[in-house]
């Protein structure tokens, strides 16, 4: 399997697939690449978007500001500016501090605490300066979600902002193509793609060293909680694996929470499971694609789970049109070629399922596998 084609050749690849039997079309298709996906960066009360709809963003550009220690604050009465334009809910909102200040108070508007709203100040303490977003007005008094610790959210990839709302989130149409994944944890992040040598499809813990700092590492079939901890400690930006278990995701979420609570935050770290939660090796066409992209800048996005490649011109793996992979069951992860339909077949426990004869790897005998346990790749 050589990475020779280009993304533009996807139509050709689909045409190639048509010559196989019609039953082959009943095998669930898995798209290896999606073009210009729409992604979301979620915000909560106290967070503000620093971009507006229609704006182009580049990797590393600040797109939002999170209030790490947002708490409920009674703001009190706020005066409406005499010359406030007011159109708070309009789709486009240029971020001009002057214009922002001139807007009348509205739910979601960015608010910076005045001298009398900087929290309780003991005589010898420095007054706290709090900022956040307004929540609601009741009896003329405003409340806010605000705090004094803020962090910038940088765009992990380039794209165009579709929608940006304080407290709610940012929707972005990404430039380039992305590999869809099944599960993700951590935060959106960016780094260079590192495809180390895998032993039996797995990555050894010792492979993760400080030399891979700033990388997004392809970690084989499964990534363990220890490996994630080690990777974070080595300033690695992310891990991509065939699967990501729920236990690892919980550990990662707990680790994220601890990081947020700390004063000195570390760079964002994300993890992607390409196939799901149960252990499976990375599909060979995807591994070939990742190997061809090694060294290039990529981004991990969480919502939806994606490995964004930022570019359209991607070397695509050359796939035989009858190439299939076993997704579930005892042969999960193995790949081979479609031979013929096996019709309704009786499987274990007397279950009857539509099946196909597949030649897995170098096996001499074909194996009967349920159609629903197979997947074929489309580019």
């Amino acid at each position: 399997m050589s990475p020779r084609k280009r993304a533009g050749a996807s139509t050709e690849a689909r045409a190639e697939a048509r010559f196989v039997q019609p039953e082959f079309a009943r095998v669930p298709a898995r798209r290896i690449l999606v073009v210009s996906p729409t992604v979301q960066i979620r915000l909560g009360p106290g967070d503000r978007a620093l971009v507006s709809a229609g704006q182009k963003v580049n990797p590393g550009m600040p797109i939002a500001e999170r209030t790490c220690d947002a708490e409920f604050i009674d703001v009190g009465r706020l005066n409406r500016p005499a010359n406030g334009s007011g159109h708070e809910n309009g789709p486009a909102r240029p971020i001009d501090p002057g214009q922002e200040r001139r807007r009348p108070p509205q739910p979601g508007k960015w608010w910076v605490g005045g001298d009398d709203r900087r929290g309780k100040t003991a005589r010898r303490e420095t007054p706290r300066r709090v900022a956040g977003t307004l929540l609601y007005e009741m009896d003329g008094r405003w409340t806010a979600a605000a705090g004094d610790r803020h962090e910038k959210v940088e765009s992990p990839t380039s794209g165009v902002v579709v929608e940006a709302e304080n407290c709610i989130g940012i929707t972005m149409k990404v430039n380039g193509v992305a590999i869809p994944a099944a599960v993700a944890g951590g935060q959106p992040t960016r780094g260079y793609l590192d495809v180390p040598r895998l032993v039996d499809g797995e990555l050894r813990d010792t492979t993760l060293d400080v030399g891979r700092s700033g990388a997004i590492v392809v970690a084989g079939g499964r990534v363990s909680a220890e490996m994630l901890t080690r990777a974070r400690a080595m300033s690695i930006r992310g891990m991509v694996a065939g699967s990501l278990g729920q236990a690892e995701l919980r550990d990662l979420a707990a680790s994220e929470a601890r990081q947020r609570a700390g004063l000195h935050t570390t760079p964002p770290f994300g993890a992607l499971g390409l196939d799901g939660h149960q252990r499976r090796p990375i599909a060979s066409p995807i591994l070939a694609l990742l190997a061809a992209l090694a060294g290039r800048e990529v981004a991990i996005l969480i919502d939806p789970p994606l490995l964004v490649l930022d570019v359209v011109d991607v070397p695509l793996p050359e796939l035989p049109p009858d190439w299939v992979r076993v997704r579930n069951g005892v042969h999960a992860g193995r790949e081979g070629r479609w031979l013929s339909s096996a019709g309704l077949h009786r499987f274990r426990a007397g279950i009857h399922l539509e099946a196909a004869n597949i030649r897995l790897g170098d096996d001499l005998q074909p194996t009967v596998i349920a159609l629903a346990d197979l997947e074929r790749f489309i580019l």
Partner: protein
Amino acid sequence: MSRQPRAFFALDFGSATTSAALVGHAGGRWRLLAHSAAPSTTDLDALLFGILDRVEHADSELLEFVSARERPNTAALVADLARLESRSTPPRRIAVLAGSKRQRRRLEEVAARAGWLVVGGSADVSDPLELSRLVLAWDTHAVLLGADSTPGGDEKRHLPMLGALVAAAARRRPELAVVLAGGAAIQESDFHGAGEHDRIPEVVKVVEPVAETAAEPEGDTGEEAAADAAAEGAAKDADAAVGDQPADIATADAAAPAAPVDAAPAPEPPPAPAQEREFTAPIEAPPTDRHDSVLLAPDAESGQPAGSALQQVLEGLRARSDDTRLGIARSVRSLALLLDKSIEAIEVGIDGGLRCRAEPFGPGHRNIVSSHVTMAGGSFTPEDLTDEIIDAVLSWSTIAFDRYRLSDRLRDLRSSPWGEADGEGALLRLAAAKAAVERLVAATPEISAREMPDILIAAGGVWSSTPPSVVALAMADLVRRPGVGRLACDQARLLGPLGAIADEDERRKMLKDLVGDVLLPLGSLVLPAGIRQGRSAGRMRVTGDTANSDIDLQPGGIWAVELQPGQTATADMEFKDAVRLGARGRRFSVEVSGGLGGLFVDLRDIPLRLPDRADQKRATWESWQRAMWTEIDE
């Protein structure tokens, strides 16, 4: 000869499975000609083409007849035949806010019974920031702010703050649907009194009962009749009037679109009997994606059973007009009227589950009492996979799993619901389905309190690949009420699409023709209660045309007596002590009908008593399961 095809496709677009059936008018009635199911990712035309191809190979003359064409081109028929469709509504999330924890729990329960994924918070426990997070979250589609019709002090003092908070969120997110229930309606003014540049949402009041009912005194809904009988002489306040509204399917009834089956040459419907009720107009909420309105709804106690009035409003807000689960509930209701029997259906899917029941108000009565609950938590692998759900699956499983491994498998089952349907995967699926049914049963005490239904239907894709005797055993494990009932399965998944037929008469007429095809008989279930442990409980003699059996009834066991589909027999039982089997007594003689699983005689305890230790519990399940699933070791 008419040029119009005498056939149509009935399509059920589930979240995991697309099910298609070809229904044709042949031999003077509508018949199920063929059906098939495939993962929802499968190309629909390929699925339909496959069905037509099979019919053509089996009986080409039949296909010519129903398609009204000579040498019909199957590819053209795929495009030309009418389609009757139903779809699963994707799961949506509602944020429930209340002034007190007590009120919040009630509202959450009602919202969950209406099929919503629920997150909730109460002002006495959570601060406004936390509540704002719930409301502003990206995946929150609606907000329910509720209070008692006369709010108590514990919630009244929080209502102004909650009203302001929700109004502010609605301004930020115009697509958010807002429901003010009960006493929270007083906060309606918050949605008008904002600044000059704010959008002023339209307030829609849905608490008023529909006046059409009064014009049709004979046409009361079943719920009305039941409520009237139960609450005769009771004072009726405004809330009670709301509660008298049909608590089940009226919303979707009127909201259902004109079904494409109209294109098929259905025979003229017979004139409606004089006693037969007219369907009233529904309490209707706009099931659109953009909700520029605030709905004022009844409180969480209104209706019979309590909360049904609010449940109806929330269901209308959530579900599509052609929702499959509501369609099943409608079809079950029509079947109950048609067969004059009590019918219960349990459906389990990937995005939720349904439990519904319909029964005639009395023998020979044309009024139907019905109720239904759709629950996102009734999914066999819910989106919010909590520790409780994992524990429940573990408790039904015959395989030993560690919690994380089971969690991973259930999550992968959600992303690949057709994956590994054999071997260990089949056992896992069965345990997950049983846990889902258990949640549905727990959420519907009003249905569980009724007697054993005459017909118990298992529906949903999760049962489709399971052997019939195992499905029957699962039903016996979960719906444990003394009595005798028939078990059936909606194998072709026709109940949902047929429920999309808006006209009740036409739906009933279609079901009358199709009832034998829709309900695949699994067998009959005999389930006596009050049997003493430790010795023979008595004897049972089954006498039929071809089957004669004599069984020594041993307490604690379950037996399957072979009785083929279509066969009937008489089961004469003589118990040593008095037991409950509908009525209390020692001798019973009941008519039973056969099915793919046969006749099931279940002498286990009601409710089931199981060992506390997990390994012993697994062994107990396995021993019962193995008796019904002999292929399990293949």
